[in-house]
């Protein structure tokens, strides 16, 4: 066991749980508070919250690992889309979704298109976000087993139960405030690591040369263009289609705060990818990537090689923090999907706020258990699993959501065709031998065409609905 790292990790988890419990009482006071932190978050907290919700374990371990294994262009293709996540969502949907007054993505589909669209969307959110728990738990298990010197399976169970508890107890209040700490640890920790690497290699030019000396292909394009383009698409759209990230936006105090939060999150993402470039270069210069069982572990190797134990502990806590934060936001989305959209929307319309909140709690626990079950024997590499989830969400929600906001003529039949057709196209592309993570390149246009063609072939939405779409844009 790595004593110093283990002590810091433990203290960190206790601190997060205390914060979760502290906010629990506040969260349970009303349904609105539980889901969106009472829409009372300022732009500084909002920036870190939006950033930490989207910056999953994949952003750190996966991006650096893939940059070392597949070359720095792959890392930058990841960032090419990812740095624009908050911006793209801000440009296309943020203000409009806010004006529509909804709390979840499926709820938007209900108001804009009708209940069948909401039901399909809620089902998609529940399935994808539950599956998204698997790579998060896999990554936390890898870190936990490395630091604590325990079996991977036990680490997955312990960490999974630990961070589910505080999310379930505190709802969005707990998640948003712990995100501030998690986001700060992550950015500051990566900054310190990048500075240490910079001075140890005596500048960027030397660092890159050291990396190229260990791996001559480090600076080269090693994959087909389609893989880079698919990765870019999946991440660019992630803020638009990810139910967890979009819900963060609703938690801002007002539209101005939401916009400034997106700007802050964009800056944080940019910083992380600049630091990630240093870390990936240092990882490549170690020349050990081919000897690792799991290439995602290269990030941890860099931390251990370059930082003293106390700083390594803090940074590993930051890494775990990013995973916890994303996983908690996903749990909240699953919980909202079942309790709010399906149960209150269809099964028991008169359910009290207390009942819905309690059901949300139970669903959260259940989803985390399902995640733990699959993470004990994960089906694929972290980056591939994240790529699948991102690609599926983009293919299913991307155009029905954006056209629903920007095109008055889009209707229920078109939205359903776009969602179902995009999903089927995505599954077919996964089954076919195509470039890795390139599925949305085909599925996204299929979904767009279906929304447009089917909407035009069927009855236009009512005059009231068309006026409502104008209202999303501030016209009335």
């Amino acid at each position, binding site marked *: 066991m790595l004593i110093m790292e283990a002590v810091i990790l433990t203290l960190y988890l206790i601190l997060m749980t205390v914060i979760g419990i502290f906010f629990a009482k506040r969260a349970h006071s009303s349904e609105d508070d539980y889901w969106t932190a009472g829409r009372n978050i300022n732009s500084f907290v909002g920036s870190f919250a939006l950033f930490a919700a989207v910056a999953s374990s994949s952003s750190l371990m996966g991006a650096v690992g893939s940059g070392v294994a597949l070359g720095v262009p792959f890392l930058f293709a990841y960032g090419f889309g990812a740095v624009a996540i908050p911006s793209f969502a*801000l440009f296309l949907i943020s203000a409009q979704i806010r004006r529509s007054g909804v709390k979840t993505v499926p709820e938007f589909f209900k108001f804009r298109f009708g209940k069948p669209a909401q039901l399909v969307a809620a089902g998609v959110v529940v399935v994808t976000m539950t599956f998204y728990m698997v790579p998060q738990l896999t990554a936390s298990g890898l870190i936990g087993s490395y630091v604590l010197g325990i079996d991977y399976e036990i680490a997955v169970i312990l960490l999974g139960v630990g961070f589910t508890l505080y999310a379930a107890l505190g709802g969005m209040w707990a998640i948003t405030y712990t995100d501030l700490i998690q986001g700060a640890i992550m950015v500051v920790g990566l900054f310190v690591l990048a500075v240490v690497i910079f001075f140890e290699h005596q500048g960027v030019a030397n660092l890159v040369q050291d990396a190229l000396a260990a791996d001559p292909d480090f600076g080269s394009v090693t994959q087909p263009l389609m893989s880079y383009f698919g990765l870019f698409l999946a991440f660019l759209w992630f803020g638009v289609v990810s139910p967890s990230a979009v819900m963060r936006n609703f938690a801002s105090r007002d539209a101005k705060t939401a916009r400034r939060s997106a700007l802050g999150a*964009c800056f944080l993402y940019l910083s992380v990818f*600049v630091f990630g470039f240093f870390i990936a270069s240092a990882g490549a210069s170690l020349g050990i990537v081919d000897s690792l069982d799991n290439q995602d572990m290269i990030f941890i190797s860099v931390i251990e090689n370059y930082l003293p134990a106390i700083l390594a502990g803090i940074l590993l806590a930051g890494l775990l923090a990013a995973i916890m934060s994303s996983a908690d936001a996903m749990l909240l989305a699953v919980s909202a999907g079942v309790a709010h959209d399906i149960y209150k929307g269809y099964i028991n319309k008169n359910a009290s706020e207390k009942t819905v909140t309690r059901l949300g709690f139970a669903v959260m626990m259940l989803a985390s258990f399902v995640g733990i079950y699959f993470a004990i024997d994960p089906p694929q590499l972290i980056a591939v699993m994240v790529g699948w989830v991102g690609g599926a969400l983009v293919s299913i929600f991307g155009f029905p959501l954006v056209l629903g906001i920007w095109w008055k003529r889009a209707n229920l039949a078109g939205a359903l065709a776009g969602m179902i057709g995009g999903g089927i196209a995505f599954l077919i592309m996964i089954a076919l031998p195509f470039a890795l993570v390139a599925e949305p390149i085909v599925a996204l246009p299929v979904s767009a065409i279906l929304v447009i063609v089917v909407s035009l072939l069927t009855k236009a939405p009512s005059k009231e609905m068309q006026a409502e779409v104008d209202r999303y844009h501030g016209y009335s």
Partner: protein
Amino acid sequence: MKEITKSKWKDPGIIMTGILVFISAIVWIWWPADTYWMGISLVAWLMFLCFFIWLLLTLIHVIWVEKIEKDNGKGA
């Protein structure tokens, strides 16, 4: 109705999205994979440069929308 449609196309978000798509299209169409600088493909450097362009676009959008709201006398 016509005015509304026209306004949508002038929306800062749509214009910024257009610029973002245009700039990324240049990278994907040009794709100078075999040109190197400091041992790293020019493709990677172009994408790296875009990180800063995305931040700049976001900053412009925030300032622009706040100006529109101020001109319209609206708070949020």
